[in-house]
Each structure stands twice: as structure tokens, then as C-alpha cells.
């Protein structure tokens, strides 16, 4: 499989792709307030492959929501590919998600009753890409993940690993700045896990910026850089052996 297709190459940007400074996230008010993030400072460079680890309740899901522009931080700034997204309104955030972020979820999150190719086309539909162009790019993305011959299958006709590959194709089809994966192998058996992690390796080699949220060590060890979050703060930040090898 090749990831070198020009259409799906990431955009290049100067400086860090992600930059968070003093990001706080507070849910609720007064005594009931929950401080999910308590001052996150983070820079991720173009082409980096980062794993974010932490026990449940540590704030890593909140991190994922903020990084993916699904939620806006209570305070602090978040710059994604040079755009300050911490002040954007709902529609502008939707557009950032559409153009800059490719999501890969634990439970695949394909839309039921829509064929694999229709699922992959979906971000392009919201990005107002023409029909023929959409179909061509979606088919290419599916071929990239080795499912070119399954494009008309419905999600329920595909195995878990295959569904996750469709989700990866969907995440890549818009050539996003950031590929954001939330426990991507959490619902997969070990064979499919290896398959998906292998795919992430190729994406990383291809120069894509990847952030993986996980609580599994062996998934994190695939990344080049591992952050550990605890109580809403980054407590460790280290490069892995794989990074050193490169």
C-alpha cells in the first residue's frame, strides 16, 4: 500500500502544528466545578507521532475533545496550523474539524446504513466537494487502506478491523493537518490491532501529524513521543526508542 498520493498528503505549515498554552477546561461552576485540564502547555511539530496516556479521569478525553475542536477550552489558547481556534464560533469550529482534523474513534463510528465509500465521502460532502471528485478521492482513500474492493459494503458487513480501516480512510480523505485517534485499537483483536498500528506507522513515515489517545502501553510505544496526563496536567513527556531509531 502506498501513502504517497498527492491528494492525501498533509499540508505543510511553519512552526508547530499544535500549540496549546495554559489551557484550562472547567466543567460546572462553584463547588461542583470539575477541573478537567489545569494548565496544559504543549507543542507538537509537523510529522510528529504522539501518544497521550493516562488513567481514566486524568483528562485525556478532555484533551482529545479540545485537540479535535469538538469542545472549546475554558481558558488558554489553542493554535492549530497557525489558526487560533479558541475563539471560534460553532460553525467555524465545524469547518476546522472538517478541513484540519481526521478523527479515528474507538468504536469506529461509521454511519450505519451507508456504504463504506459513502462514509468516506461524508467529510467531503460537508466540505462541499463536487460529486465526481468526492467519489474519486474516497475510492483512492479506500484503496490506500486496502479496501478498494469493499467500497459498496455496509459497515455491518465488515469486520471490526475493516471498519476501522474505513474510518482511517475517512480521516485521511480531506488531507487533514492532524490525525486524532481515540483508543483506535480498543475494540479490536490483536491481529487487527497490529494491522491498524502498522498503518499508523506508515502514516507517520509519510510525515503526517498523529495524536493517539490510549491507555495501552504497547500502543503508546509505537509512537515517537509519549505524554502522560494525570489530574489535568502533563506529568511526563518522553521520546520513545522508535523515535531514536529514526
Amino acid at each position: 500500500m502506498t501513502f504517497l498520493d498527492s491528494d492525501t498528503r498533509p499540508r505543510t505549515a511553519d512552526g508547530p502544528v499544535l500549540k496549546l498554552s495554559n489551557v484550562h477546561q472547567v466543567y460546572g461552576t462553584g463547588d461542583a466545578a470539575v477541573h478537567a485540564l489545569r494548565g496544559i502547555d504543549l507543542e507538537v511539530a509537523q510529522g510528529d507521532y504522539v501518544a497521550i496516556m493516562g488513567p481514566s479521569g486524568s483528562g485525556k478525553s478532555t484533551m482529545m475533545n479540545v485537540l479535535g475542536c469538538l469542545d472549546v477550552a475554558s481558558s488558554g489558547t489553542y493554535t492549530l496550523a497557525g489558526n487560533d481556534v479558541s475563539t471560534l464560533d460553532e460553525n467555524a469550529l465545524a469547518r476546522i474539524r472538517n478541513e484540519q482534523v481526521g478523527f479515528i474513534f474507538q468504536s469506529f463510528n461509521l454511519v450505519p446504513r451507508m456504504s463504506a465509500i459513502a462514509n468516506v465521502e461524508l467529510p467531503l460532502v460537508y466540505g462541499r466537494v463536487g460529486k465526481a471528485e468526492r467519489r474519486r478521492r474516497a475510492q483512492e482513500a479506500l484503496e490506500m487502506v486496502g479496501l478498494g474492493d469493499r467500497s459498496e459494503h455496509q459497515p455491518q458487513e465488515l469486520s471490526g478491523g475493516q471498519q476501522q480501516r474505513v474510518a482511517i480512510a475517512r480521516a485521511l480523505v480531506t488531507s487533514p493537518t492532524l490525525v486524532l485517534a481515540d483508543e483506535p485499537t480498543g475494540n479490536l483483536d490483536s491481529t487487527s490491532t497490529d494491522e491498524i498500528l502498522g498503518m499508523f506507522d506508515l502514516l507517520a513515515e509519510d510525515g503526517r501529524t498523529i495524536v493517539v489517545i490510549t491507555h495501552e502501553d504497547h500502543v503508546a510505544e509505537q509512537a515517537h513521543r509519549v505524554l502522560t496526563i494525570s489530574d489535568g496536567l502533563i506529568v511526563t513527556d518522553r521520546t520513545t526508542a522508535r523515535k531514536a531509531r529514526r
Partner: protein
Amino acid sequence: MSFIEILLSAFKGLTANKLRSALTLLGVMIGVASVILLLAVGNGSAQQVDSAISKLGTNTLTVRPTAAQGGSSSSGSSSTKVITRDVANQLGSAGLGHVSAVIPQVTSSLNVASSTISETAISVIGTTPGYFSVGTNTVGSGAAFTQADVTSSAKVAVIGQTIATELFPRSSALGQSISVSGTTFTVSGILSQQSSTGFTDPNSVVIAPISRVQDSFTGYGAVSTLTVLAKSSAGVTAAQGEVTIMLNQLLGVTDPTTEPFTIVNQSSLLATAATSAASFTVLLGAVAAISLLVGGIGVTNVMLVTVTERTREIGIRKALGATRGAILGQFLAEAATLTLLGGVLGVAVALIGAQFQINGTQPVILGYSIPLALGVSVAIGVFFGVYPAGRAAAMRPIQALRAV
């Protein structure tokens, strides 16, 4: 997305739960069908009334004596205030500009019999030959009686078709003798088929020269009706004025409020009937509109369930970059597609239903009611879909994604 794509994807969404969509669609279908059909029934009955009245002739006036003004302190004697045949003749020969004929009628309800069969309480009308030129009172077979028959009080009669077949079930009634309360008449003609305008059968009637009927049955007092033929439909109102003045003169009436007669103008009757038919149609339409409203509430209900069921899908779509507007549009399109389908089926049902008589009325579909009902059904989809679609659009992506 193109319009077709939106429709297709909306249709796909609806097929997710076929039974539920079908039941909702049924509600809209019944609403739309009943709107179209009931309006058609109202329209059909209005047309029926219209044609019945126009058959009476739009250039006729009907003069009826009102109940006797008992003991009024009027100057003349009461006998001068009655419309007799004599008054009718004077009115007819007064040379009124807009009046072409005055046809007096006396009526009585009598026993009529052939040699073997007897019928009771048959309407016997005594009139002049002019009667057969009013509206549809034409002689179907045989001949009407003549002015000479009136002059000579001849015992001839024209009978209605019901009487003809009842008295002479096996042979033609023409030339036969019938006995009317003991007086023998010869049947000279049979009326053409008359369509019913009310509760009485207009085909169950015996029509004879007025002189003979007065001689034998009613006496020479007041006539029961004067039919005045105007020279043209446009001149009916003018004729009414002339007749009123002339009759008041002939009867010696000085105070117009005590006129011993009323004049019914067929065109004013037509206007009244049209008004009542229109309000009937509105009433039927309102009842049908309520059923359409109920169907619409069903759409809201089912869309709310759909939105709840598909919360996760909404979350996925939002994560992939769907804006509020895109989600709103998607669910509105689904609701509108649902009601449009219901509307199309409803139109089909109404078109089929209109082929049948409903309660004796042949429905006549109003041309505008079909596009109206279809438009309204789409509007209902949008109106009743706004709330559920708005709920979907307002969902926050992280919460929607968390849904099971």
C-alpha cells in the same frame, strides 16, 4: 449536495425504520386525501345545487301569495288582495317591458287512478301551456295541452314519468284515461324526466288546464303560484320591479310592507345556495384540515424518536464537519420527504375516491386543491419537523458522540 442527493439521503434515512415511517406516512396520507376528497364532495354538492337551480331557469320569477293578512285595517276588501287567475291575466296583458309571460298555477293534492291502479296524494297542477316552456318542464312524449284546451276547460292532462309507469306499468300511458278524484282525464303527453331538487318527486305529477282544475277541484280563488318569465336573464331584476308595482296596483296595495305576495328571484336563490354550499365546503375542509394537523403531529413525534435514536450519527456527522445548518437541513429534508410521499399517496387515494358517489354526491375535485394539499403537506413536514431537527442541530458533538 444536490437536491436529488438530499432527497435520496433523506429517503434512505426514512427506510431505516420502514414500519414507523409507513405509519406516519399513513397519517399524512389520510389527512391529505380527506382534505382533497371532502373539498371535492363540498364542491360536488354545490354544483348539484347550482345545476338544480339553473334548471328552474334563470329568467324566471316566482310569485307566491303570502299568508292572508287577517283583519288588517286596509282600505279595500280582503277579496281584492288575492292573486286570482284574473289578476294573472291582467298582469300578463299589462305590457310590462321586461316580462314575456305570466303563467299562473293552482295546485292540489288528489287521488289519481287508472282503471286498475290508484295512487293517493298526487300533486295536480292546473296551469296554462306556457308552463311547458319554463326550465326543464318539457313534454317528453305526446303533446302538451293548448290554449284552446284551457279556454274550453278540456279534460286532458300531461303526467310525470313516475305516474305514467305506476298507473300503466305494461303499456304506454299516452291516450289512456285517468281518473283524478272522480273526474276522467285523457293523457295527452308525458313530461320528460325531471331531476329531483328536493324531497318530492318531480316526476310524480299531473298537469292539466288551469280552468279545468279550478272547475273541478280548487275553485276560483287565489292561485298558488305565478311564474313570471322575463325576456332575458339580465332583465330579471327589472322584471321583478315591474311585477311588484303592477301587482300592487292590481291588488290595490298602498303600503308596500303589506304586500300579500313574495317574489322569489331564481338568481338570488342561486346566490343564496352558492353561499351555503361554500360554507359547507369550508366546513368540510376544516374537518379535513384537522386530520391533516393530527398527521403533522405524528410527524413531529416520529422525528423526535428518530433524532433520539440517531444521536450518535449526529455526533459523528458533527465531528466530520457538519454545521448546525447541515444537520437541520438533513432532518427537515427527511420530514418533508415523509410528508411529501404521504401527500402524493393521499392525492392518489383522493383521485380514486372521487370516482365514487359519496352520500349521493359525485365529488368534483377542485383543481387547486391538489397542488395546495401537496404544498401544505410539505409545509407541514417542515413546520412539524423544525422542532425535532432543531434539537438535532443544537446537539453538542461531544455529548452526541457519547450516546449509545
